[in-house]
C-alpha cells in the first residue's frame, strides 16, 4: 500500500448524450502533504476530474470506466451515506466563486460550522471556537464577530477566505480547490493565495489545485499535471514543468506565463516610449468627471471618475490600468460617447467632441471605435459574421455587393480568420475567434482610435496572448491610436508606451510605461506591480512582504476596495 490520499486510475468521463469524453483515461495520485496542480485551458476537463475526487459528477455526465480511491474508499461506487460521511470531513471542496457557493440567507458562522454539525464531530461551541481560530489564522478582521455576518456583507476576498475556513474546519486529508483565486483582483489574489498556502501547510493537508494560471500554481504546487482535451499530456514536479517543459503545449503555457510577467529577468519586453509627439494629440481627455445619478453643479450623485486627463497620439498605445471598481470601463464609454461626462471635455484632433453619440457626426463616430470585453454579448448572436461586418461597411462606407464580400474576407484575414467564417454564427466560434471578429467589426469602420476594454480578460492565457499579439501588429500596421484598458499590468506592459493607473476613479500615477512600472512612485502602483503573479520561487513571499510594507501608506482601504459598481457591498465591507 502506498500512502496515497487520492488515487485516480484510468478514469473516463463522458457526456450522457455521447460524444468526446471530457476526461479521457487519466491516472493521477496525490500523497500526504502534497499539492498537485491540474492546469489547463477551459474545456480541458480539469474541474470534472477534480470533482470526481469527491465522488461528484455534474448533471449530463457519466463515468465510462476507471476508479477513484480516496483514503481507501472507492468513491465512484460508494453508497450515498459513505460519500456523505467523507465529504467535508476527509475531503473538502473550495469553489471558484465564493459569492455563488455561499447560501445568501445563512450567516457565515452557520455555514462554516455546518460541516461539524452534520458530521456530529463536536459540540457547536467548540466548532465555533475552531472556526474563529481559523478566521484569525486566515487574517480575517475581528475573528470573534465577523462570522455573524451574511455573505453579502463582506468583500469578495474575505468571502473567499471564509470558504477556505469552511474547507479547513474539519482538517480534511485532501482539499480540492477549483480556481480559488481566478475571480479576484490581483491585489486580493495575493492575500487569498497566502491564506490558502498557510492553511495547507498548517495541517499538512494534501491538495488538488485546479487552475489555468501557471504563475499562481507555481507558488503553491509541488507537482503539476498539464491537461489538454481530457488527457494528462505532461506530469512532473513544479520545477520540472516550469524549468524544462517537454511538450510544445506546456512550453507555450510557460512562455505565456513568463511573457505575462513584468520585471522578471530576461522575460517579456518593455516598449520604449514613442520618440516624439506631433503638436496636437489625436485624442485629448481633459479633466473628465463622470458617474451615475442626477448631476448637480457638475457632480453626479455617485462619482465613478473624477478629474481624468490623458492624451493619445497617432500610432501610440496608451494603457489604462485599474482593478474592479476603478472606473476604467466608464472611461471607455465616456470616450465612445455612450456615457455623458458630468464635467470636462474630450477633443479629437483639437476639436471638441459632443458628449453623446447622437450629437456626434458620422465621421466622428467612425473614427472612434470601441471593442467590448465580452464578445459573447458584443456580437449579435442572431447575425452571421458576414452580416455583422457587412453592416458596418455599408453604414460607414456604403460598400455593398461584391466589394463588400471582398472587404469582409479581407477583414477576416486581417484578424487571422479564414474567409469562410463569414457564413458562421458567433455561437459556432471559439472564445478567441469571437474576440477576433469583435476586433474586425471595429476595424471595419476604418477607425483612427481604437478603445479596447478588457478584451483579453475572459480568455485563456494562450488565447489572450495571441489576441494581444494581434493588437500589437494592428497598431503598427495601421498606425492606430489605441487606448488599452485592462486590470492586467503585465498585458499592458507589453503593449503600451504610456500608462495611466486608476484607483477609485482617480489617476494615481501616469507616464511612460517603462518608468511607471519599473520604478513606481505611488504606493498603490507599487502594490499592483508586486501583486502580478510570477512563476519564480519566492514571489508570493516577496509580494506579501511588499504588501505589509505598503499597508500603512495605503491605509486600510486597499484590503477592502471600495467599488462603486457594487455599492451595497462596499459600504458593508469589513475594514481591518
Amino acid at each position, binding site marked *: 500500500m502506498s500512502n496515497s490520499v487520492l488515487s485516480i486510475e484510468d478514469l473516463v468521463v463522458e457526456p450522457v448524450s455521447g*460524444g468526446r469524453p471530457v476526461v479521457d483515461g487519466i491516472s493521477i495520485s496525490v500523497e500526504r502533504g502534497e499539492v498537485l496542480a491540474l492546469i489547463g485551458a477551459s474545456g480541458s476537463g480539469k474541474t470534472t476530474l477534480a470533482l470526481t475526487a469527491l465522488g461528484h459528477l455534474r448533471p449530463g455526465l457519466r463515468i465510462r470506466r476507471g476508479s477513484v480511491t480516496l483514503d481507501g474508499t472507492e468513491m465512484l461506487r460508494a453508497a450515498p451515506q459513505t460519500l456523505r460521511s467523507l465529504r467535508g470531513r476527509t475531503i473538502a471542496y473550495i469553489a471558484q466563486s465564493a459569492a455563488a457557493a455561499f447560501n445568501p440567507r445563512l450567516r457565515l458562522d452557520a455555514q462554516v460550522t455546518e460541516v461539524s454539525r452534520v458530521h456530529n464531530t463536536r459540540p457547536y461551541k467548540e466548532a465555533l471556537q475552531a472556526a474563529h481560530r481559523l478566521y484569525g489564522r486566515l487574517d480575517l478582521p475581528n475573528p470573534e464577530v465577523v462570522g455573524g455576518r451574511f455573505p453579502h456583507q463582506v468583500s469578495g476576498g474575505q468571502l473567499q477566505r471564509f470558504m477556505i475556513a469552511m474547507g479547513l474546519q474539519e482538517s480534511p486529508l485532501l482539499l480540492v480547490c477549483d480556481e480559488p483565486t481566478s475571480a479576484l483582483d490581483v491585489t486580493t489574489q495575493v492575500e487569498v493565495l497566502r491564506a490558502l498556502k498557510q492553511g495547507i501547510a498548517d495541517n499538512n493537508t494534501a491538495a488538488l489545485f485546479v487552475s489555468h494560471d501557471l504563475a499562481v500554481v507555481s507558488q503553491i504546487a509541488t507537482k503539476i499535471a498539464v491537461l489538454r482535451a481530457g488527457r494528462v499530456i505532461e506530469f512532473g514536479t513544479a520545477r520540472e514543468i516550469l524549468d524544462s517543459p517537454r511538450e510544445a503545449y506546456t512550453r507555450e503555457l510557460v512562455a505565456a506565463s513568463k511573457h505575462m510577467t513584468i520585471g522578471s529577468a530576461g522575460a517579456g519586453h518593455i516598449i520604449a516610449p514613442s520618440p516624439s509627439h506631433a503638436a496636437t494629440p489625436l485624442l485629448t481627455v481633459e479633466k473628465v468627471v463622470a458617474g451615475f445619478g442626477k448631476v448637480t453643479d457638475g457632480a453626479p450623485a455617485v462619482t465613478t471618475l473624477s478629474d481624468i486627463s490623458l492624451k493619445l497620439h497617432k500610432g501610440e498605445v496608451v494603457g489604462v490600468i485599474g482593478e474592479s471598481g476603478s472606473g476604467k470601463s466608464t472611461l471607455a464609454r465616456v470616450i465612445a460617447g*455612450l456615457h455623458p461626462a458630468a464635467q470636462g471635455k474630450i477633443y479629437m484632433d483639437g476639436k471638441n467632441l459632443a458628449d453623446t453619440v447622437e450629437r456626434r457626426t458620422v465621421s466622428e*463616430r467612425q473614427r472612434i471605435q470601441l471593442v467590448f470585453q465580452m464578445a459573447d454579448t*458584443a456580437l449579435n448572436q442572431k447575425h452571421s459574421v458576414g452580416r455583422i461586418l457587412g453592416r458596418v461597411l455599408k453604414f460607414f462606407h456604403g460598400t455593398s455587393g461584391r466589394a463588400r464580400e471582398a472587404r469582409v474576407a479581407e477583414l477576416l484575414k486581417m484578424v487571422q480568420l479564414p474567409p469562410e467564417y463569414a457564413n458562421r454564427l458567433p455561437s459556432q466560434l471559439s472564445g478567441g475567434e469571437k474576440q477576433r471578429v469583435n476586433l474586425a467589426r471595429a476595424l471595419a469602420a476604418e477607425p483612427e482610435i481604437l478603445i479596447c476594454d478588457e478584451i483579453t480578460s475572459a480568455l485563456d492565457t494562450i488565447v489572450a496572448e495571441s489576441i494581444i499579439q494581434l493588437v500589437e501588429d494592428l497598431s503598427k500596421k495601421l498606425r492606430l491610436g489605441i487606448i488599452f484598458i485592462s486590470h492586467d499590468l503585465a498585458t499592458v506592459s507589453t503593449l503600451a508606451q504610456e500608462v495611466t493607473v486608476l484607483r477609485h476613479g482617480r489617476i494615481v500615477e501616469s507616464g511612460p510605461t517603462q518608468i511607471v512600472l519599473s520604478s513606481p512612485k505611488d504606493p498603490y502602483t507599487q502594490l499592483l506591480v508586486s501583486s502580478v503573479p510570477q512563476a519564480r520561487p519566492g514571489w508570493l513571499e516577496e509580494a506579501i512582504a511588499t504588501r505589509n510594507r505598503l499597508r500603512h501608506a495605503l491605509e486600510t482601504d486597499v484590503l477592502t476596495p471600495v467599488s462603486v459598481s457594487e455599492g451595497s457591498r462596499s459600504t458593508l465591507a469589513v475594514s481591518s
Partner: protein
Amino acid sequence: MLDAAVVHRREMKLTLWISMFIIGLCTLVAIFSPWIMPHDPTEFVTDEPFGSPQVGIWLGSDYLGRDLFSRLIDGTRTTLVMALAATALAHLLGDTLGLLAALRGGWVDAVISRVADLILSLPKIIVGLVVVAALGPSIVVIVILAAIVYAAGVFRIARALGSDLVNMDFIKVAKSRGEGTGWILFAEILPHVAQPLAADFAIRMSFAILFMSSLSFLGLGVQPPLADWGGLVRENLGGLAAGSLVPIFPAIAIAVTSVALNLFVDSLDEHQRKQKGTR
C-alpha cells in the same frame, strides 16, 4: 437508470407531437366547419331534449333537440376565431408598446407601465362583468375587452425582453455607430424576441379561450343562438342532473385545446434546451 435521458427525450417528443396534432386538428375544424357539420347547428333534429347519441347524431342532442356535434364544430370556429383575434390584437398592442417602452425609457415607459400596472391589478373576470354590465354582451366588446386586458401582460413581457437586450453590448455597439430606432428594433432586437413572444402568443391564446369561455359560461359572453364552447356548457348545464354528458363535451374541448397549447410551448421549450445542452 441507464437511459433515463433517452426515455425522457422520447417522451418530450411524444407530448410535442400530440399537442401539435390537437392544435392542427382544431385549426382544420375551425376552417372547414361548414363542410364538416352533419346538420345545421340551429336545426332541431329530435323532439326530445338531451336525446342519447345515435347514428347521425353522434354526441346526442342538446337541450332543444339540436345536434350537439354540429354545434360543437360551429362553436370551435366561434371560439378559436374570437381567441385568435383577441390574442393577435393583444400582441400587436403589447409588443409594439413594450419594445418601444424598453427602447425609449423615460416618460413614455413610465406612462405606459403605469397603465399596464393598473390593468394588471384588477381581476379580469370582474372587469369583464362590469364592462358587460355597461355595454351589454356582444362579440366585438368581448374581443376588444380580452385584447386590452391581455395586452397589459404582453406589454410586461415584451418590455422585460426588450430591456434585457437594450443593455446588451451589441445594442450599444449599434447605438455608438449611430443606427436609427428602426434598425435597432427590427434587425437587432426582433430576432431575439420573436421566439419567446411566439411562445407567449400560444399561452396567451389559451388564457383568452378560458377567459371568454368563462364569460360565456356565466351567460355574459356570446349570446344564443350562436354559441362558443363556454356557451354550449351553459346552455346544457341543466342536463347534468339527468345524467346527460352533453355539457361535458364542450368543456372537454376547452380543456384539451388549452392544455395542448400549454403543453406545446412547454415541450418545445424543453426540446430546445435539450438540443442546446448536447451541443
